[in-house]
């Protein structure tokens, strides 16, 4: 079980993509040039994240998200200075300050900021430890990754990298049929929506670019973001039926072709 490497070659956004699609549970450690970060995932969603030492405090997080005001914070801080985030959360709910959803939304704002910071890391060893969970005293969030991945992918500018991801604009796109995926829950830009509206096995990326008046670089960026978020996949245009050209095998007779492949199979079995 080795899920490790260097961000230089396998980017943070690619990692998020992998964890999201594989619905992994565990901790992703990245050793940056000056700090170590740790992000905990639960079934592909972010539960917890920290860069360096964890000095975060639920009340501070909620003030930053404008869910409580500084006066309330000072008061609660004093009263609950020895309590864990989890205990504070329970108190806030029981005493009617906030509901559970509000607390989660505050934590998600905070986690999103940390992940945005990690997007800027272009170097550092990473490793994934399967199974590791959120520290007991913290409230585990369930932050969806799709929006973050799209946001991160928009930042990728380098044409060369985009060319490698999408070598040919003659390929077409189709929606992935991943269970539990609903494109309406994803925050797409206007440009991205325009491209999405043309996604169809019959349209090549080139044709979509023309229809949406996007240049090579722009269309590659949009397609890349959609690919990374697992919303679409590349296919041959027209879902072109796979045809055996006469050149591959001398004979055009299906029975003879099959017999030839069967002879190859027998031969290789005997090696």
């Amino acid at each position, binding site marked *: 079980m080795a899920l490790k490497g260097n961000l230089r070659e396998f980017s943070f956004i690619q990692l998020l993509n992998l964890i999201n699609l594989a619905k992994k549970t565990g901790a992703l450690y990245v050793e940056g040039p000056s700090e170590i970060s740790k992000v905990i995932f639960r079934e592909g969603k972010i539960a917890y994240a920290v860069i360096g030492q964890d000095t975060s405090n639920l009340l501070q997080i909620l003030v930053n998200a404008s869910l409580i005001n500084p006066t309330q914070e000072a008061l609660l801080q004093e009263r609950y200075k020895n309590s864990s985030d989890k205990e504070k959360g329970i108190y806030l709910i029981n005493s009617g300050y906030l509901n559970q959803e509000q607390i989660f939304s505050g934590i998600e704002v905070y986690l999103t900021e940390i992940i945005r910071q990690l997007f800027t890391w272009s170097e550092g060893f990473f490793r994934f430890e399967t199974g590791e969970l959120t520290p007991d005293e913290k409230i585990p969030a369930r932050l969806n990754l799709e929006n973050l991945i799209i946001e991160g992918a928009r930042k990728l500018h380098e044409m060369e990298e985009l060319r490698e991801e999408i070598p040919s604009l003659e390929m077409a796109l189709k929606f992935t049929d991943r269970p539990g995926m609903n494109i309406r829950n994803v925050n797409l830009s206007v440009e991205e929506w325009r491209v999405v509206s043309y996604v169809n096995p019959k349209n090549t990326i080139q044709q979509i670019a023309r229809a949406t008046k996007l240049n090579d670089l722009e269309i590659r960026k949009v397609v890349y973001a959609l690919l990374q978020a697992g919303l679409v996949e590349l296919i041959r245009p027209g879902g072109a*039926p796979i045809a055996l050209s006469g050149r*591959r095998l001398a004979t055009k007779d299906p029975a003879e072709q099959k017999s*030839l492949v069967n002879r190859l199979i027998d*031969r290789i079995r005997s*090696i």
Partner: protein
Amino acid sequence: MQTQTVKIVVTGPFNAGKTELIRSVSEIDVVSTEKKITSEAEKIKNSTTVAMDFGRITVDDDLVLFLFGTPGQKRFDFMWEILSEGMLGFIVMIDSTRPETFREARSILETFRAYAPTPYIVAANKQDCQDAWEVEDIRVALRLDPSIKLLPCIAKKKSSVKTILLELLYGILEEMDSGKS
């Protein structure tokens, strides 16, 4: 009757194990166009394939299978299209121990798919190494649809290479059976 030849192409990034795979099953010494590596950057091994590798498996008097290995280094990719012409199918070798090459592997896969609509199989090579990524993680990293054949591989082991070749051939048969020809 004239001897018929068919061809399977083995492709993948630099150092993935393409030459090794062909060497494991070819009945002739692999006709290799390997060259000593001089550039420091690529000096993780001593030699690399610069034009192609070439292996052979004779079925009988009138049928011969050729295995062609493409050069892994990008600057030789002008060879790819020529090599892929008329192939029966292809194998994409992945170095499971080097995630930094996955992006390129996917790009190579897409390029070959665009050359010819033939069946293919992806071989997650070097599964005997401690650092090897698991096959299912590689599937996700390469964004391979569950329907695409992705198998663990140890190119140094003949039995493993046999499995890869057989699975590719089964895929070719299935495609013929599905009446798409």
